[in-house]
């Protein structure tokens, strides 16, 4: 027998080893099993019925269509909305982040809510009155509402829910800090007395992080060592909303099941699934393939333009309260001079920046507050956008190095680069510095880390000028990132809070707004729209203006 050596091998050996390579390649795909797509949960495929879809606008007119079991199959009665991060514990009285609001707002409801235009509308309260002194709020509660555990929602439950939020003292608890007394004269009347007038109190009832109603029975049943059921409510829900959490797999999948007894009518989807997919490219692939139905956050202009022309996918826009803001450090060498800050405010070309970065999905800011809280033009903040004037103002600092920070979890990195170019054109040496969530939120208390400029996109907890200013602009406020103080504006804001008369209060707010603007500490760049990429077969899309990236899920449906 001829001996085989490395040098003297037969052609058969070559073929066999090539075949071995093919086998290895096959091994890699061995787990494929079947050729089905990964749709065991959703069952959806990429056969969306829209082709060459175009942008639409959220209707704001939920139809209230009742669920029709005959109209859907198992593959179409699951709505899949992606989460980019794993949410923190979902107890609505301590939860204070963005992603998990999709879950908390599907499960819990407040006394009021915002519609798509930003108007306060009844929710679990059908009506309310405010006393002449602005201190007493009387809510008429919606009858025949039950929590998902079957217990009735009434004034006692409302009072217990308010009290729990106050007692847990989490981030959102400030919204009820001004309550002096609560009363429940009858099961459908809930009376709240404030220690002093608060112009945002009613609006807090519609905030995405505001007081929501939690079943007192569930809290009592699941309380452990006096924890007010916080451990249980971290991954369970006990609200009145259209969906309730039924399965939690942390960092993997959150499953909510329709509440058949929902007071607004049973939802059109049997389940709401929220997979955690941090990688946006994967989210997009899954949307295109029909494995998820909605992407609500993190979409750049390029993504939106591309998705708007993708078969089976539509881009939907809504009004939002998201304001792109360039904060200016008044202790910076360059921007210590108010005249320089004002020049930056007036001559940074926000119209061009907005158009280049956001395209049609935002408008250049023209008012101090960007969400129609004041009549347009009452507190104007319009830019001239003259680069030569900007260069002239910055001429004394030519060659000076500054740092431009931006919030990395948003998509504004490229906008920071555009601003960097403009400022370099004006003679500054600009370095860009990304800030993570934990580092940016430490800036208000750590002046040593503050950049000269900081770019971010922010929205208030609720749609009032008072709330926005007290979060971002008021002296030493929680998110006054670069430590600017405008005492005159603060005083006007405080004065406004105590005024009952609507017109007089508005006048004081305008005074505050103009004082904040004149400080030059904040350059308003753009007012963003809410943008969603959705499967084209989703219908009756509705939003709440104060929750960017959120779709209302109670009446959302899939076209047959």
């Amino acid at each position, binding site marked *: 027998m001829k001996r085989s050596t490395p040098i003297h091998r037969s052609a058969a050996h070559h073929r066999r080893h090539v075949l071995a*390579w093919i086998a290895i390649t096959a091994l890699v795909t061995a787990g494929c099993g079947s050729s089905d797509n990964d749709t065991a949960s959703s069952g959806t495929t990429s056969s969306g019925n829209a082709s060459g879809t175009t942008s639409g606008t959220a209707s704001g007119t939920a139809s209230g269509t009742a669920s029709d079991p005959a109209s859907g199959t198992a593959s179409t009665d699951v709505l899949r909305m992606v989460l980019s991060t794993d949410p923190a514990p979902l107890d609505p009285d301590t939860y*204070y982040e963005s992603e998990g609001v999709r879950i908390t707002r599907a499960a819990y409801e407040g006394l009021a809510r915002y519609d798509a235009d930003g108007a306060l509308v009844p929710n679990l309260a059908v009506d309310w009155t405010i006393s002449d002194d602005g201190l007493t709020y009387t809510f008429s509660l919606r009858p025949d509402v039950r929590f998902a555990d079957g217990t009735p929602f009434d004034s006692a439950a409302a009072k217990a829910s308010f009290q729990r939020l106050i007692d847990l003292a989490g981030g959102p608890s400030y919204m009820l800090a001004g309550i002096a007394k609560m009363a429940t004269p009858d099961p459908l009347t809930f009376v709240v007395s404030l220690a002093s007038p608060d112009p945002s109190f009613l609006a807090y009832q519609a905030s995405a992080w505001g007081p929501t109603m939690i079943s007192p029975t569930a809290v009592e049943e699941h309380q452990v060592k006096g924890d007010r059921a916080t451990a249980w409510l971290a991954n369970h829900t006990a609200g009145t909303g259209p969906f309730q959490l039924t399965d939690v797999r942390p960092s993997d999948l959150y499953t909510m099941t329709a509440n058949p007894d929902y007071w607004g009518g049973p939802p059109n989807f049997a389940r709401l699934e929220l997979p955690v997919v941090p990688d946006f490219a994967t989210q997009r692939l899954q949307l295109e393939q029909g494995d998820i139905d909605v992407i609500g956050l993190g979409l750049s202009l390029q993504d939106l333009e591309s998705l708007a022309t993708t078969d089976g996918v539509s881009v939907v826009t809504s009004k939002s309260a998201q304001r792109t803001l360039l904060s200016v450090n008044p202790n910076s060498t360059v921007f210590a001079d108010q005249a320089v800050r004002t020049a930056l405010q007036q001559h940074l070309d926000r119209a061009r920046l907005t158009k280049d970065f956001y395209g049609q999905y935002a408008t250049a800011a023209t008012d101090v507050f960007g969400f129609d809280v004041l009549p347009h033009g009452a507190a104007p903040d319009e830019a001239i956008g003259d680069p030569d004037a900007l260069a002239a103002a910055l001429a004394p600092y030519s060659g000076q190095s500054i740092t431009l920070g931006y919030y990395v979890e948003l998509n504004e990195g490229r906008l920071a680069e555009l601003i960097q170019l403009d400022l370099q054109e004006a003679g500054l040496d600009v370095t860009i510095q990304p800030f993570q969530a*934990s580092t940016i939120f*430490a800036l208000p208390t750590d002046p040593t880390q503050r950049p000269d400029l900081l770019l971010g996109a922010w929205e208030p907890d609720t749609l009032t000028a008072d709330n926005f200013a007290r979060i971002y602009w008021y002296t030493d406020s929680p998110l006054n990132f670069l430590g600017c103080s405008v005492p005159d504006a603060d005083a006007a804001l405080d004065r406004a809070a105590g005024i009952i008369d609507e017109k007089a209060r508005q006048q004081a707010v305008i005074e505050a707004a103009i004082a904040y603007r004149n400080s030059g500490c904040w350059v308003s760049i753009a007012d963003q729209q809410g943008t969603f990429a959705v499967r084209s077969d989703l219908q009756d899309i509705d939003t709440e203006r104060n929750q960017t990236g959120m779709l209302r899920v109670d009446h959302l449906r899939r076209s047959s």
Partner: protein
Amino acid sequence: MTTGLLRRLLALVLVLLGLSLTVFVLQEVSPIDPVRATVGASAPQSVVDAERARLGLDDPAVVRYLRYLGDIVRGDLQKSLRTHQPVRDDLARFLPATIELSLFGLALAAVLALAFGILGSRRGATSQITRFWMIAGAAAPVFLLAIAGKLLFYKQWGLLPAGGRGSVTNPPNGPTGLRTLDGLLNGRLDVTTDALRHLVLPGFCVALSPAVAVGRVLRGGLVDFSNSDAARTARSLGLTERAITLRHGLRNAAAPALAMGGLQVGLTVAGIIVVETLFAWPGVGFYLSQSLPDGDFPAIAGVTLLFGTVYVVANFLAETLQTLVDPRLSQ
């Protein structure tokens, strides 16, 4: 053997101590405010102050570090600032997914490394093809592999899922926490098949780099052996090349390959953070990547200590295996 074991146990303690100190110092010098991560960005200062006091963050750094070390000794890794759960419980929850992915990836890596090593040591077209794939594999960043895999196997061919750990509703919760195994143990073949499909792409991304590294070392050893006097003697005795390689060459080339394997296990653990994030794989690496932006020190430290332990233990096991394969190394 006993001395070696004690020496390595001491090394493990020192490594963990060093790791805990390093992570603690990094936390101290970083501008991250973990309290904000806990109570929310726009929470009023009074809430922040109360939470800071509750967490003991107002104490001096030395006190906090010693308290932390004391807690570790008692098996308490503190509470995660993000999940509000004990880190120990979080790790127990996420670890099975990481173990499953690691085992699958390392098993695949072993198969690929063996194939790379053996086929690459031959001459001719097979060797050329093998070496091409080894170079390509070594050069390809994990994220690129992930994207290419998703585009081809998910989008183009629809064969494999793009991410996640499973698509089956209500998978069994135990007893092992490994979906593939639990599916079999609970008679749910659909779960096992589904889990395997979800494992393939991330598993391949985990496997490729260590497979190439070990395969290259193995190939070098096999080529050296093939040119050795021993191999020539074997040939003169009439043994086939296959027999020479499989019976004698592999044994001689295995020791350095195993040493490289031990190193690669450690590197794989580090790489798995990226893979888990890219594939939304709910394991410890994903847990870490979610904790980093929030400055969740207890979680970050817990994972670091865990990975450090795995690294040291993996190297210890690799060295022990080397000794077993080649007893000369024990002297």
